[in-house]
């Protein structure tokens, strides 16, 4: 109670200082939510890639739109260590993909040959999964439900074609949230239409895939296998778990570093303003410190008194920053749902972490001013006007 009273002795100053922390924690929460989303995406990818090798025709990791022909499958399956190769297609949901943050919405399809070997299991909040003989059916990822206005039994439009929704995925917090899964044949047709005319002449839709998923035999190291496939077919990108990890951690590390860098700078500013406020507060209360010392207050008492105040400033700033950040994330995700781009994820650990950080920041910023107060010479402090 006394702490609260003391902090709000100078109302405007207390408010401004708290506001400084609020802004910092707000930035930390919003940026952190972004990073958490990316981290979970990457974790999902890591889980997906954990036990397999993906092969695509040049280009970048998994999202290449260069076609790879399904008639390569027998040759690849003949490679020692390969248990099964399954063809898949991944395409952007909107042909003209507007630049967006996070993962773009995708169309995903597989020939389903590997479905019994797949360790990355999807669960369905409603409906069922696709079966190999489905045609014109679709399963919708959790974050696309609103954008596509999807419900089980209803129809959605994908690239101008109509699909009947048979299932809706439970939220995975990773890539499938932003995917529409359609039958392989339908995806091949869409892919075919995407290709330049020149290429179309030389290929049949039924041959098309964007990548192969290769399941190794039990006991075979997928990284070793990826290396071997890469050697045998230098024109392909064969990516195993280690390579995937390396590719994504490079880019996500830079990203999270920037994100947290920005947040930390704003917190540094907030921390400096707490130092400033606490220094002023000690200065203004020099005489009071002198009185307390004349009454025999120990150094620890004085330090605790001022530290309590700066911790309080930190805590209030942290709570309001978290509240504002949470509202922002809610609103941004709500707005993003309509376009299928949910890019923030406020996790419990981030929420607790940012409050704890605010309090620690408050305490650290208060250390020097309160130590200074405790060391004041009582006689000089009492004389202070």
């Amino acid at each position: 109670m006394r702490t609260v009273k003391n902090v709000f002795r100078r109302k405007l100053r207390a408010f401004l200082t708290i506001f400084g922390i609020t802004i910092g924690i707000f930035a930390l929460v919003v940026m952190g939510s972004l990073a958490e989303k990316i981290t979970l995406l990457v974790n999902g990818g890591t889980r997906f890639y954990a036990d397999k090798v993906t092969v695509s025709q040049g280009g970048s990791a998994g999202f290449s739109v260069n076609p790879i022909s399904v008639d390569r499958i027998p040759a690849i399956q003949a490679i020692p260590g390969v248990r099964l190769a399954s063809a898949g297609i991944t395409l952007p949901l909107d042909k003209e993909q507007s630049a967006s943050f996070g993962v773009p919405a995708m169309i995903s399809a597989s020939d389903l040959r590997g479905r019994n070997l797949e360790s990355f299991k999807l669960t369905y909040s409603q409906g069922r999964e696709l079966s190999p003989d489905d045609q014109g059916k679709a399963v919708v990822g959790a974050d696309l439900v609103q954008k596509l206005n999807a419900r089980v039994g209803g129809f959605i439009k994908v690239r101008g074609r109509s699909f009947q929704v048979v299932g809706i995925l439970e939220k995975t917090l990773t890539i499938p949230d932003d995917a529409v899964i359609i039958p392989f044949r339908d995806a091949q047709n869409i892919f075919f239409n995407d290709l330049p005319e020149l290429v179309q002449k030389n290929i049949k839709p039924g041959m098309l895939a964007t990548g192969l998923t290769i399941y190794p035999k039990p006991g075979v190291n997928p990284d070793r296998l990826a290396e071997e496939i890469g050697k045998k077919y230098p024109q392909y990108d064969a990516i195993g778990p280690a390579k995937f990890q390396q590719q994504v951690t490079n880019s996500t590390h830079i990203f999270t570093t920037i994100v947290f860098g920005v947040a930390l700078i704003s917190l540094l500013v907030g921390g400096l303003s707490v130092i400033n406020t606490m220094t002023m507060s000690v200065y203004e209360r020099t005489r009071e410190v002198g009185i307390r010392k004349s009454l025999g207050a120990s150094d620890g008492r004085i330090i605790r008194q001022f530290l309590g105040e700066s911790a309080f400033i930190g805590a209030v700033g942290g709570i309001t920053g978290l509240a504002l950040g949470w509202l922002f994330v809610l609103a941004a995700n709500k707005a993003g749902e309509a376009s299928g781009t949910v890019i923030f994820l406020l996790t419990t650990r981030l929420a607790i972490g940012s409050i704890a950080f605010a309090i620690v920041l408050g305490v650290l910023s208060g250390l020097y001013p309160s130590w200074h107060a405790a060391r004041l010479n009582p006689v000089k402090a009492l004389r202070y006007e």
Partner: protein
Amino acid sequence: MNDGDVILQIRALYKTYELGKENLVRALRGASLEVARGEMLAIMGPSGSGKSTVMHIMGCLDTPDQGEVWLEGRRVDKLKRHELNRVRSRQIGFIFQGFNLIPTFTAAENVALACEYAGMPRRKAKAAAARALTRVDLGDRLSHHPSELSGGQQQRVAIARALVNEPAIILGDEPTGDLDTINSREIMQMMRDINKSTGTTFVLVTHNPEVAAACDRTVCMRDGAVLADEECRPD
């Protein structure tokens, strides 16, 4: 006067303030004094003679450059900071000219703070503060802030704060300096009563001959030293 009767003794205290390289203020130059247990002693002397400096050193708020301070048979001038804090909170009470109450605290909170610093739990401190304030006739002003009290009342709060831990000695640096004649008399009377009824020792610095006259004994300071009783003259 045998040693058992001496509650506070200072021996040949020296204190020099350095204002600049060449500018030394020799505030104390061999000040010595003995205070008997239970007595009420007045210190007089011209401005700048070192009265406040002596009080601060006797009250363990400051340390001398040279000399010794003995409080209740224990040497206290070379104690560590935390030991000095302890001595101040339990053995000494202060009354200042400017009252020195914390403006944002109520009368009761101001007094209770002294108890807390002496190690009393909050609840007990509250009760003790109420008792002490009742004793100085402010039982009905517990939750008033200093700004809502007259100067005389504020000084009574300060007296309550000084005596609440039942210290061995209460030091007052011009306790009536900011008060008018009537309030001065009232405050002086109150301290005299407390001294009589509890046996608490008082040392009061004063410029007021009336206050000095109400004390058991008066000593004079001049140029940083305490003069023998017979040399004491009014300023």
